[in-house]
């Protein structure tokens, strides 16, 4: 059997895979979010609050994911009017607002953090959720919605002229991604058992962005590979002990130079 240590590493890798997929979805419609940690925080805090009240974990998780999805609709609405880098900064602002909110929100601990969460995350459930999310994202690619997302990403004017409602598709992409991040947050809270606002800061959003861009933003397996690498590498780099972030950072720079389009090529180039 796996040692407790590796079980926990795999659990965190799985949570990060979910985060990567949560960003992959809007990114395949050209919407780059630097605020995915905000959706994760909503899923984490709400589900933890509910399980503390005695609500069963799956229900609490569903509620957290739903709330994240609804907030995703709200954040996605202004994203309809702006593009590219503006969306990145808009979502960055959203993530910071969520963080400051939970930092000050006393019902869930405020600045002291939220402790005493029950250990309800089982690593095989995390892996199951990853598998489901991956299949969903994979099937999405071969559905009308997924095609429309790619079309918008590649040429939104032509997409609209071909009958695609930009609003519906963009809102769906944003909100679907937020739901996945909400699920990741619920698992996260019931794994660490203590959450505070700083755990959902910009660094987490930026790391999520890293998973996708490093792994390959045009291949559903890209964020999976990216998340696993980014989670496991610093662990295995324990050989270099205290300097592992330096090694890891250096590897990121090398990867960006060596494979600027991500480690995995776009799906359509494998034929």
């Amino acid at each position, binding site marked *: 059997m796996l040692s407790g240590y590796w079980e926990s590493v795999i659990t965190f890798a799985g949570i990060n895979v979910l985060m990567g997929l949560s960003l992959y979805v809007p990114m395949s419609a050209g919407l780059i979010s630097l605020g995915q940690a905000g959706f994760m925080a909503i899923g984490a805090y709400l589900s933890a609050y509910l399980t503390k009240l005695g609500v069963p974990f799956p229900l609490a998780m569903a509620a957290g994911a739903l709330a994240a999805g609804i907030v995703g609709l709200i954040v996605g609405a202004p994203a309809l009017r702006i593009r590219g880098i503006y969306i990145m900064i808009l979502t960055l602002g959203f993530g910071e607002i969520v963080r400051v909110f939970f930092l000050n929100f006393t019902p869930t601990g405020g600045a002291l953090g939220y402790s005493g969460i029950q250990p309800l995350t089982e690593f095989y459930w995390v892996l199951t959720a990853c598998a489901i999310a991956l299949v969903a994202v994979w099937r999405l690619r071969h559905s*009308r919605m997924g095609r429309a997302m790619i079309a918008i990403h590649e040429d939104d004017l032509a997409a609209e*002229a071909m009958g695609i409602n930009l609003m519906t598709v963009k809102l769906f992409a944003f909100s679907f991604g937020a739901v996945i991040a909400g699920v990741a947050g619920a698992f996260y809270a019931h794994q660490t058992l203590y959450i505070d606002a700083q755990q959902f800061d910009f660094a987490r959003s930026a790391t999520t962005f890293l998973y996708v861009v490093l792994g390959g933003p045009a291949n559903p397996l890209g964020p999976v590979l990216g998340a696993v690498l980014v989670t496991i590498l610093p662990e295995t780099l324990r050989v270099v002990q205290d300097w592992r972030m330096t090694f890891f950072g250096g590897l990121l720079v090398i990867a960006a130079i060596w494979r600027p389009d991500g480690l995995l090529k776009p799906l359509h180039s494998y034929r």
Partner: protein
Amino acid sequence: MTALLVADAISKRFGGYLALADVGVQIRAGDIHALIGPNGAGKTTLFNIISGVAVPTAGRIAFQGQDYTGRRADQVLAMGVARNFQHVRLFPGLSIVENVMIGCHARMGSLLQELLSYVRLEPRAERDARDRALEVINFVGLQGRIAMLPGELTLVDQRRLEIARALASGPQLLLLDEPAAGMNPSEVNQLDTLIRQIRDSGITVLLVEHHTRLVMAVADRVTVLSAGRVIADGPPSIIQRDEAVITAYLGDSQ
């Protein structure tokens, strides 16, 4: 015969530049209607307004008697007006059949049905869209290459693919913006045949074209724009002898 599309007193201003001044055009159902004029005459602007990509500064535009001024491009397509682009705008990351399937989206029902079909493993709407796409691909003569990416096609075939994508939406009016650009004479002949076939299948065609020989060969009716105004309108035989048209084209003719 009644007009399928009526553009009435359309003006379009870009800053201080008046691209279209009080332009009126009527397109009869079942016609191949050509829109010609020298460079900068406002053809593409009018085209963008008809397809909902641009909004006129003044004037109204109606399809089958229904005013649709100011509607978004996707709503205009759903109404039955489809277009191609002068500078080909395909989706480079989607395969050829997927590009055409994008055109089918408008006819695939509601979002709720979409989500339900997504849960089922073999969604029927998806299969139907694929069948329809293959049919249209055959029609324009791109069969056998459905799994390729648009970038692997010649420019001429990319233009055919764009026409297929537009046809897949099942339009009543097809807008073609310079489809013959970059084609050699034998390819223009094929295009001539294709446009006639499209018309014969019951689709009205509005053709913006520089290629005068093609226009005069296929068009049932010709509207001539110059400097943002309509200077002539009528059957090709009359247009060819029109003084104003000949003057407008001096120095710009083929």
